[in-house]
């Protein structure tokens, strides 16, 4: 069971159009994400499993569960690729 956990030193700038900019100050990486990405980021608090994150997103978006699951996992992989999550949390 994995609990995605965002790094404490990553800033999340929430913009008025609901897009979110994730900024990792140590390396200077700036990763813009959309509203749903911002929601996933909020849920990467180390207390939610991937399945729970998918479940919560499914309640918010009218999309088939399978698609939400796929998109969420892809997004988490992207966050991990940019080094924005703690080590082995995904």
């Amino acid at each position, binding site marked *: 069971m994995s609990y995605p956990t965002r790094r404490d030193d990553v800033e*999340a*700038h929430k913009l008025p159009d609901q897009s979110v900019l994730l900024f990792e100050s140590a390396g200077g990486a700036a990763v813009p994400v959309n509203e749903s990405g911002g929601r996933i980021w909020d849920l990467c608090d180390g207390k939610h499993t991937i399945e729970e994150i998918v479940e919560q997103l499914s309640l918010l978006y009218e999309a088939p569960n399978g698609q939400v699951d796929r998109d969420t996992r892809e997004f988490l992989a992207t966050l991990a690729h940019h080094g924005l999550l703690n080590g082995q949390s995904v």
Partner: protein
Amino acid sequence: MSLQPNLLPFTEDCFCVHGVPFRLKTNVPDARSCFGRLYGHFYKSGLTECEFQAELALSASGTFHWTLADRTGEASTLNATLWNLESILCETIIRSQRRNIAIHAGALAFGGSAALIAGRSGAGKSTLSVAMVRRGFTVGSDDVTLADPDSLHVFPVPRCFHLDDQSLALLRTDGLEIPLAPPRPPFIVPGDFMPGPIPACRARILILISGQRVTQPLLTPMPQAEMAARLLQETGLGPLSHGETMGVLSRLAAGARCYGLTLGPLGRTADAVAELIRESAGTAAEPQAAATNSR
């Protein structure tokens, strides 16, 4: 018969460009005229304390030399010397900023606000900026704009337009003939097109040029977060930390409408940008809530 050039006495002019006072000394009247046009809105008479002095001199051997602090160079033509010194001056003005960050973007003024046009070098900022002049816009800069981290006011740094032969040909198709006839050096500056300096204002529109020119211009809304991230790539190291700079750019994007622009034919592109800006001015709104920042 002497082949030595008849050297003229040096003149000195003082300017204070966005808080940076400096003196320009030259014995070349054309150079004085060029920098006078470039920084004319920043002319300061009686300035005694300057941060640095720039000098452009014609030597007895007929070559041109420029000096700024510990940097120096020479060239056989005045044009090359003007461009070199102008570039170093711009860099020095940026480096001398104590608070403002420098964004690699041009600035157009409209209705008490500004539109920033960002993009990599060679993306087409200068050509588009000059084309916007024909459409009634005031161009503050085609290349660099400072942003105050507190007020978010933007301050264009005037530069001479870097227009190559292709740019000039494109502008000709748009009906703008740039006078290149000698003896006037091709040192075209924003001041040639505008009556006065752009007052301090905020940027309400951010446009990022990218991609190759296509048959029709394409202006598409861009998420504010993406714009902030892209502007970070176009923002040099300044007086603020990386994180503080990111915060400023986020707030800048938060208060603006953001668009990506793929260039089409120059005339149609400039028309599209002009229409977008005029529409935005017509529906001018106070900036939306500022970006919030959390960890």
